[in-house]
C-alpha cells in the first residue's frame, strides 16, 4: 500500500574497506550513545550509534566499563586464590567460569574428580543455563516493551536462585566448583523442591509463549529483523544458539561431550531463519531442553560418593609447566579457558574466551548498521551478550 523502506541513496555508502565515512558536521547525522546508562543495553557497555533519521548508519561497541583486569589479577593469585575470582567474569552465568577453570587446573595438575562431583557440576551448569536463558527471554521481551514476560522470567529465575542458594550457599556468585570437585552434596529433599521450580517455570513459559511466539506484534517486531547470514558465522566466530538459529546444529555438549553429557539424552534444536525471532525460539526450545536435562540429571545421578578429589596443600600448590584449553557450551555459545602454567604457584596466563567477545564486538558492529534505532536493543539482547566476559 505504502512504501516505507527508506531511500538509501541519501545515506553514505560504505567505502572499499567496508568503512562508512560519516561527516558529522553536515548536521545530517546524529551521534547517539546507547549506554552505558541505558535501560536498553545489556549490562554496562555502550554502543555509539551514528544515526540518520531513525536509521543507524554506523555502530561502534565500546566496552571496558567493567574491566577489572582479571587476567592480570589471576596472574598474581595462587591457583586456589583464582577460584573465587573466576566466577566474577560473567555475572549472570558464573558457573561456567568455575567449571572451565577447575577443569583446566585439574588437567594440568593431574587431579582426579570423583564421579559424584561431575554429576553435581553438570547439574550446576544446567541450572546456570536455565538462569541465563531466563534472563535472555526476559531481556528480549523487555527490549521490545513486553515487561510482563520479563517479570515472570525474573521471578522463575529467582526461584532457581533459591535452589542455587540452598545447594551452593550463595545466590549469584556460587563459588562452588572447586578445582578437584565441588563443595558439597545435594541437600536433603532437593529433588522435590527443584521439581516445583521446574514445573512453575514450565507454567510461566507456556504463558510467555503465548505472549511472544503467538503474538502478532512480537512477530512483526522480530521476524526478518537482525538477520545474520549463516555464511558469516565462522568468519565472526558465531557459536551457540546464535549459530543454531541459522541452521548450524553445533553444540559442544554433543560434539565433544564433557562432564557427563555423554550419558544424557537431549536434542540440539535449530531454526532456519537466523533472525531475532529464530534466535529467541532456539533459546526457548533450549530452555525446555534444559528443564528436561535437570530432571534427567537428578534422576540418573548417583546418590552418594565423595565430592572432592585429593588436593595438595593449596597454600603452596605448584603446577608443572603446560598449557591447555577447556571449552564448554554455555548458554551463549562456546565458552573456554586457556590456561598457561609455568611451574610456579601462580598461573602464567589465563585467557577467557567468552562468546560475547565475538558476538558483541565484530558481529554486532557488522549487524547494527542499517537497522532502526528501535531494533538496536532487541538485536543486542537477541545476540545474548554479557559485557563482563568481553572485557573481563
Amino acid at each position, binding site marked *: 500500500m505504502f512504501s516505507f523502506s527508506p531511500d538509501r541513496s541519501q545515506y553514505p555508502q560504505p567505502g572499499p574497506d567496508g568503512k562508512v565515512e560519516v561527516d558529522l558536521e553536515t548536521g545530517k547525522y546524529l551521534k547517539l550513545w546507547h549506554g552505558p546508562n541505558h535501560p536498553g543495553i545489556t549490562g554496562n557497555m555502550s554502543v555509539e550509534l551514528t544515526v540518520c533519521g531513525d536509521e543507524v548508519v554506523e555502530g561502534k561497541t565500546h566496552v571496558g566499563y567493567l574491566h577489572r583486569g582479571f587476567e592480570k589479577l589471576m596472574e598474581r593469585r595462587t591457583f586456589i586464590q583464582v577460584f*573465587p575470582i573466576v566466577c566474577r567474569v560473567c555475572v549472570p552465568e558464573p558457573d561456567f567460569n568455575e567449571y572451565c577453570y577447575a577443569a583446566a587446573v585439574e588437567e594440568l595438575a593431574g587431579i582426579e574428580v570423583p564421579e559424584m562431583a561431575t554429576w553435581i557440576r553438570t547439574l550446576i551448569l544446567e541450572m546456570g543455563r536455565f538462569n541465563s536463558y531466563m534472563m535472555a527471554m526476559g531481556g528480549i521481551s523487555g527490549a521490545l516493551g513486553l515487561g510482563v514476560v520479563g517479570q515472570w522470567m525474573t521471578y522463575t529465575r529467582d526461584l532457581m536462585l533459591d535452589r542455587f542458594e*540452598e545447594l551452593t*550457599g*550463595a545466590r549469584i*556468585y556460587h563459588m562452588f566448583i572447586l578445582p578437584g570437585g565441588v563443595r558439597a552434596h545435594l541437600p536433603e529433599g532437593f529433588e522435590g523442591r527443584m521439581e516445583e521450580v521446574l514445573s512453575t517455570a514450565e507454567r510461566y513459559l507456556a504463558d510467555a509463549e503465548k505472549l511472544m511466539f*503467538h*503474538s*502478532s506484534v512480537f512477530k512483526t517486531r522480530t521476524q526478518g529483523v537482525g538477520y545474520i547470514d549463516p555464511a558469516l558465522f565462522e568468519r565472526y566466530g558465531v557459536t551457540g544458539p546464535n549459530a543454531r538459529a541459522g541452521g548450524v546444529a553445533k553444540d559442544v555438549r554433543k560434539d565433544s561431550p564433557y562432564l557427563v553429557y555423554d550419558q544424557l539424552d537431549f536434542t540440539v534444536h535449530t531454526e532456519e531463519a537466523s533472525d531475532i525471532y529464530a534466535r529467541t525460539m532456539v533459546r526457548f526450545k533450549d530452555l525446555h531442553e534444559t528443564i528436561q536435562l535437570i530432571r534427567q540429571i537428578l534422576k540418573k545421578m548417583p546418590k552418594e560418593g565423595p*565430592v572432592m578429589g585429593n588436593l595438595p*596443600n593449596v597454600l603452596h600448590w605448584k603446577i608443572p609447566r603446560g598449557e591447555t584449553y577447556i571449552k564448554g557450551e554455555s548458554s551463549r555459545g562456546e565458552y573456554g579457558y586457556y590456561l598457561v602454567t609455568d611451574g610456579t604457584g601462580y598461573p602464567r596466563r589465563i585467557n577467557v574466551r567468552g562468546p560475547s567477545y565475538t558476538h558483541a564486538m565484530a558481529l554486532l558492529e557488522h549487524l547494527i548498521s542499517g537497522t532502526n534505532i528501535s531494533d538496536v536493543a532487541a538485536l543486542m539482547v537477541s545476540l545474548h551478550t554479557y559485557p563482563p566476559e568481553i572485557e573481563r
Partner: protein
Amino acid sequence: MSLRDVLSPFTAWKHVINDPVTIKDPFSREASDRYRGFHQNDMDKCIGCGSCEEICQNAAIDMVPVEGQNAGPGDSGLRPMIDYGRCCWCALCVDVCMTGSLTMSNEYTWVDSDPDAFRFVPGVDAKSWDLEPKGYQREDERRLTGTVRAPMGETCPEDRIGNFDEIVDGFTAEQAIIEADRCVECGLCVATCPAHMDIPDYISKVRDGDYEGGLQLLYETNPFSQACGRICTHKCETTCAAMHEGDAIAIRWLKRSITDSVPRERYFDLIQKPDVPETGQSVAIIGAGPAGLTTAYDLARKGHQVVVFEALDKPGGMMRYGIPEYRLPYHVLDHEISVIESMGVEIRCNMRVGQEISMDQLKTAYDAVVLSIGLHQGRSTRVPGSEKAEAAIDLLRRITAGEEVPVPEQVAVIGGGNVAMDIARSMARLQKIKHGKVGVTVTALEELDRFLADKEEIEEALEEGCDIFPARGPQEILVDGDTVTGLRTWKVDAIFDAEGRFAPKYDEDDEMVHPAGMVVEAIGQMADISLLGAELTEQLEWNRGRIMIDADGQTSEPWLWAAGDAVSGPDVIHAVADGHRVAVSISRMLTAKREALQ
C-alpha cells in the same frame, strides 16, 4: 496474521486474579542453611595461626591481638579481623581454617553509613549473628591442606628387637616433600621450640628441595640438628596447627631428612666458621653434652678460644650415654660433634673436673667457665628393697660403654618417661640376644595416656614385647637374699592431692607382683655436683637443689655460667637453647671486658 496471534496474548490477564507471588516480608527472610553469610569465630578453638589471612586473595584478613586472648603454647594470641570492605564471601578462610573455629552464619544484612565500620573481629566484637547455628560449614571430607602424615618407614619389631640398629628409616625425598607440603607456615611451633628454630622456613626448603639451604638454616639455631632430627622431644609438634584436625606435621623427621640428604662432607663447606678476628679470650666448658657443645660452638664462632672438659671417654654427654644407639646411632653423633670441632672447639675427654683439674684452676686459667654437667645420677624410689635396684641411667651408660651388664630373663622397670622406655627397650634387646625372648615389665604411676614418654616410644616398646602396667605404684622390691625376685605394686587412684602436690593415693586391694630378676628405677635423674667443691657450693645460690641462674644462665658467681639438663631438666633441645643463651651472655661479658681493657 492469524486471529490466534491477535487474541492469545490476552490470556496473560488470567494472572490478574491470582495473588501476587511477592515475598510478603522480605526483611525477616532467612537465608538457606548453607548460606555463606557473616563470619563467626569460636574463640576457644581459634589458635591464631593466620592460615585464613594467607589464603585470602582479597587481603581482607588482618591478624590482630585482642583483649582476653594471650599468646601461649600453640596459640599466637592473634585473632582474624575481617574487613568487609574486602571480603568476597568465598569461604576459603573457613575451608582452610586449621581448627574449624572459623565458620559463617547465614546472616547477611549489614547496613551502615560509616565505611570504617565494616571491620570486625568475629567472636570478639559482639554481633547479632554470633550464636546463629545455621550457615556455611565445611564438609568433613573436604580439606585444603593435607591431614594425614606421610608414612615413615620403620624396621618391623621382629627385625629390630635383636640388635641396636637404628629403627627409623627417615623420609625419602618424595615423602619429605609430601609431608613438607602439608605445613601451613603459621610459625606457632617456633615459639614452642626451646631453641626457637625457624621451622616453617626449613620446611619450605624441604618443599623446594633446597636441602643445603635448609641445613644452613638449621645450623643457625641448632648445631645438634642431626641429633634433634632423631631424638628431639619435638614439643613443636604438640602445638602444630595441623594437629587440630589431623596429624601434626612431622617436623622432627623433616629436620632429619634435611640433615640426611646433605652429604656428610658437604657439611664442612656449608657450615663454616664466620670470618671473625680471634679475641684471645678463652672459655672453659665442663661437660661435652648438647648444652656445653652448643655454647662452645657459638663462642668459637665468635672468635673465642673454647676448651671443653669431658669426664667420660667420648663427647656427647647424655646423647651418647643416655640415648640408646637404635635411636641415635653413634656415627651420627660423631659426625655432629666433628662439625662443632671444625669451628675450633677443643674437647678434652677423660678430664673429670674435680679430679684431673679443679674448678679453681679453671677459674684462674679461663675468662669464663660454663657448667653443663647434665644429670647423671639416678633417683631412687626409696621403697623397701630399693637399694638392690639398678639405676636406669647407670645401666644405659654401661651398655654404651660396652661394659657387661647382667641380663636376667625378667626385668621390671619403674617409670613412664623416655628413660624408662629406653632402658626397657635396651634390656629387651639384650634379653633377645641372650635369651631369645623378651621379658620386660614397665610400671608407672600415670595412666597410659599421661605417660611422660613419647607416644611412639610407648608404641614401639609395646611392639617390641614390653608389658606396660600403667597406674601402678611401686611398694616393694622383693629380694630373696642377694637376688631380686620381683616388684610389688599397688594400683594408683590419684597421683596428686587436691592442691596439686605429689601425694599418690593407692588402692591397697589391687596388688600385683611382677616377677623380675632385676628392677630398674627410671624415675628421674640428679646432677652430680661433687665437682664444685664445698667452698664453691657454699658460695653459689641454690634453688630447690638446682644452681640458681638468671635469665642468661649466669650463676651468682660472675665467672660461672650453668646450662643444660642440670639447670633446666633433661631435654636436648632445651640444652641447646641454654647453650645459645649462655653463649650470648658470655660473649657480651667478654666483649665488655675487652672494651674495658682497651
